[in-house]
């Protein structure tokens, strides 16, 4: 368990969170895109259901999927690959 978690960490230690909703097509698209980029860039990753937590819902409900890098909002709706790569390179 601990080993698996450590191996998820990018060398620079970046962690990406995708905030999703069940049945949201744009969320599926973003998850697929991130899965591909993760193979290449090796960042930590988790997905959170926007409706599973009240604070999260209040913050993000009206614009899923939302992409967070190290807990800070990076963007929503669609992952812009160039911007994302630049942000992870920092």
């Amino acid at each position, binding site marked *: 368990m601990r080993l698996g978690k450590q191996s998820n960490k990018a060398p620079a230690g970046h962690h990406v969170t995708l905030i999703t*909703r069940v049945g*949201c*097509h*744009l*969320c599926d*698209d973003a998850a697929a895109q991130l899965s591909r980029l993760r193979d290449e860039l090796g960042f930590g990753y988790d997905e959170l259901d926007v409706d599973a937590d009240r604070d999260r819902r209040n913050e993000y*409900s*009206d*614009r*899923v999927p939302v992409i967070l890098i190290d807990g800070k*909002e*990076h*963007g*929503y*709706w*669609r992952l*812009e690959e160039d*911007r994302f790569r630049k942000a992870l390179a920092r």
Partner: protein
Amino acid sequence: MTVPGNDAVPESVSDLVRRAARATPDTPAIIDGRERVTWSELDARATTAALALRASGLDDGDRVALQLGTGLDFVVLYLGAGRAGLITVPVNPTYTVPELAHVIDDSGARLLVTAATSSASVSTVRPDALLEGAPTGDDPCRDRTGEDVAVLLYTSGTSGRPKGAMLSTRALLANLDQVAALDPPMVTADDVAFVPLPLFHVFGLNTGLGIALHAGATTVLADRFDPLASLATMADEHVTVVIGAPGMFAQWAALAQLATAFGGVRYALSGSAPLPAALAAQYASLGITLHEGYGLTETAPGVTLNRTGKAGSIGRPLPGVEVELRDQDGSPVEDDDDPGQLFVRGPNLFSGYWPDGADGPDTDGWFGTGDIAVRDDDGDLTLVGRASELVLVNGFNVYPAEVESVLGAQPGVAEVAVVGADDQVTGEAVVAYVVPAEGASLDPDQLVSAAAESLAKFKLPREVSVVDTLPHTVTGKVMKWRLKAESTDASR
């Protein structure tokens, strides 16, 4: 041509009505004043209009000009023209005789439908006369689909002579699909959408009406904008979505009835002209977020949308629309906050201008909007001006929008427009036109010295003219070319 099955993917805008008529035949589709039309009635009326248009001798691919105000007649004839296999040419009812003549001649329209008396050199009919004379029959199902041009939309044009942007069915439906993909949806079948916009303009036509037709929502229309009456309509019809222009939101803001009318509104979209940050803030203080959308005729129209309410921003590209900022050499802007011309790519793009598709998207599918934007660290875009409005003072770039926001923030300034004027010494110079707020008097020298606190010297206006009003287009944009012509004349 389309033969709709029960679960068929819509192949035309008119197909959206067939779909809603199957799903919810008895719910209201359009409310226009005292007239209420269900989806099955709208479906039948669209077919009637199609039969009437075919009976008047029009054939597949012919252009029909609709010079009509916002109302049921426009909707029915637009949908009917689609079913009849025709290309709709929406025309501004306030066009002068020469303006109308240009559109008719350029488009080669074979029929003009107008409620006004017309001297146009084309066969002309009133909408009521046309529809009353319709033969009975079945839906001709001659829908223009895919790459077929469905609408020829003459751009309102803040510069020069209107050109006909060719919008294919593919482009129109793509933009509706792009908006419909958002989660949560902007409009659903349970919504009542208020669209007090001109339908001869792309924002009213494909964002207002189109999105509602796509969602199967009820559309409440309003012609001639009356702030007080429209707020009463919103309350009476239990409106849940408002799609309007900044000028409308500004006029409503002054009225006490605003809070009641907006009580049931869960989504308010502002488009067709820049939304002043102060106006958005005023609504925010009432708990209402005005979402600014950005688009253009050539992109059918939606490009970006501000979903967070960040002040002054046009937000992010709609999913499915690609945006790139390019510098003057055409290479992508590297750094955040550096301005670049906004280029757009996506299936919602037009097919060039009538008739030969000139000046459309390039071979890679990109189209330059002529708008200058910056992208911030969050990935949100903000417009800073028009490429064509860029003023070069001693070779330094001045974006009029920056000067406008500084002057506009001074007390007593209601509206401001900044243009470039020829200057013998500096090449070009900044010239400002300011409209005083009611009861205020403005001193040009004082405005310039106040602006000097936040603007570099080369950005300061050479002249500030205090004027009663600025010339506006129908959707509220300042016609800067008129101001520019004026400042050029004055300097001679």
